[in-house]
């Protein structure tokens, strides 16, 4: 296991954090991670993270939900136990379709929402009883923490970070 050093710069305001991120990026330092107590709008773009693909998965999950609803209602109401729906005993899925639309809609939303949350948890490597990765508990309250990898240039980095308005700068060992 190789130990590497990182700098933790702590900020107390999201606007200051945003301008700090832009400055640090402009100096071409690599920001490992940022911990914030709430989502900061535009931070992902400022950090240069790749755009999220969760929208695409949501669309796919929605289609899966829709398909499940259609197959399920077709089996339950038409094939397995044919029902007389709304006094119109046509026993055809398409002619009874209006009655199934609410279910189709609900399952689309249900699948999209739940699978999206599960995807998000998996993608961010979160599961029950997992220890928090958060290096400083104050980031769950009112502080923002920026983690930057150090490659022997800590003096330069520290002065840059002090300029950007960090209230606290700590050099820490991080076990990998």
């Amino acid at each position, binding site marked *: 296991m190789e130990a590497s050093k990182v700098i933790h710069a702590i900020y107390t305001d999201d606007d200051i954090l945003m301008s700090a991120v832009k400055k640090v990026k402009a100096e071409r330092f690599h920001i490992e991670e940022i911990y914030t107590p709430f989502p900061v*709008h535009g931070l992902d773009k400022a950090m240069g993270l790749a755009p999220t693909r969760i*929208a695409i998965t949501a669309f796919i999950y929605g289609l899966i939900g829709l398909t499940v609803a259609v197959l399920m209602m077709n089996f339950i109401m038409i094939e397995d136990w044919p029902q007389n729906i*709304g*006094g*119109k005993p046509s026993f055809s899925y398409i002619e009874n379709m*209006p*009655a199934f*639309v609410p279910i189709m809609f609900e399952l689309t939303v249900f699948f999209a929402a739940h699978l999206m949350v599960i995807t998000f948890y998996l993608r961010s490597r979160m599961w029950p009883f997992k220890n928090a990765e958060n290096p400083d508990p104050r980031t769950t309250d009112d502080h923002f923490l920026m983690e930057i990898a150090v490659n022997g240039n800590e003096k330069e980095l520290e002065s840059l970070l002090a300029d950007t308005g960090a209230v606290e700068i700590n050099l820490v060992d991080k076990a990998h």
Partner: protein
Amino acid sequence: MILGALGVGYGFMTSHKSFEEVEHLLAEESHHGGEHSENTTHVAPSHDAHAVDSHDDSHSNTAHAEIDQHKKHIEHVQHQIANRPWSALYVAAFFFMMIALGVLAFYAIQIASQAGWSPVLFRVMEGITAYMLPGALIVLAIAVASGTIGHYNIFIWMDPEVVAHDKLIEGKTGWLNLGGFVIRGLIFIGGWYAYRHFSRKFSIAQDTAEDKSNFKKSFRISAAFLVFFIYTESMMSWDWIMSVDPHWFSTLFGWYVFASMFVSGITVIALITIYLKSKNYLVFVNENHLHDVAKFMFAFSIFWTYLWFSQFMLIWYSNIPEEVTYFVTRFQDYKLPFLGMVVMNFVFPILMLMNADYKRIPWFVVMAGLVILFGHYIDIFNMIMPATVGDRWFIGIPEISSVLLFAGLFIFVVFTALTKAPLLVKGYPFRKESEEFHY
């Protein structure tokens, strides 16, 4: 501000074209008059012969009865054909009035909710709402004219003879009478116009004001207007649209019409904004604002579908004869516009505007917007036409020329109003927030 001399020129051009269209339209109307009288004389004798032939002289009584019935039918059809130019005019007039009214409601919501993203678009909205007053008066005038000058061409409950023979309509005369219709209409229009007048006045006064008092006043009347609006809009939809089918009713109708007017209004905001931006009059509007407007187009297209489907499904499921006839007519005689409208107003926007990046591309929003607008024209068409012209519908010269007429008038009024004030609300408290708005 110097704004679009071009905009006005454009408005004049189209409205000029449409004045010719009016002449055309009137000619069309008289032509129709001539045609159907010919039609009657032409068809009636041939049927006489036919009836007499088939039944010979033995059953002269039956034959006679059949001729009577047939005459009635011809009169009915003749009436329907005569209704068509009236209805075409009414549908187009209502459609453009509805856009302006929808924008007025949207504008009031933006002010009442103190939205931060939209103030850069306020002057565009104010321009569009300028059409509300003339548009609504024209709709009311056509409706009243159809019952006084015309032969009850749109609203059959205006015909005292029909009412006398119809228990159901007779029971509704407390609401459905010409006097009440006019008075209610004037109250609606008066209330809407009062709001539009004062909000515009405060908005312009705020440009040069030192303090925020105009903004506060505007905020207060916007909240009050929204309450007034949702009641009057609902009653307006019963009066101006639902009563064309005086036997039929739907408790969801007010909301359904509202959804249609709202989405059309927002679409027109997007179209006019993109147009003005392309002429460099709205440099402060960027793709973030466009994105938000397009989101509204997307969301309210779905909202419209939701209401449309809620109304349809309950009636379809319960299958009560007096309710379900409404949809039976539409499925039998209006299959293409009725189902085509659902495709244009739901399937198309949901697929086109779902992607966040597409909502930021002007030409994409314009194309989607045009389809949505056409879809909602068809929506109004489907509300009015089945009751007035039955299966004698077609989108032909009367329909297209009346759309052109009102489109011309709409563009003329809107762009004239746009020239009257600077295109940016300078003194509005949220102006800076809106200019820097970032998605």
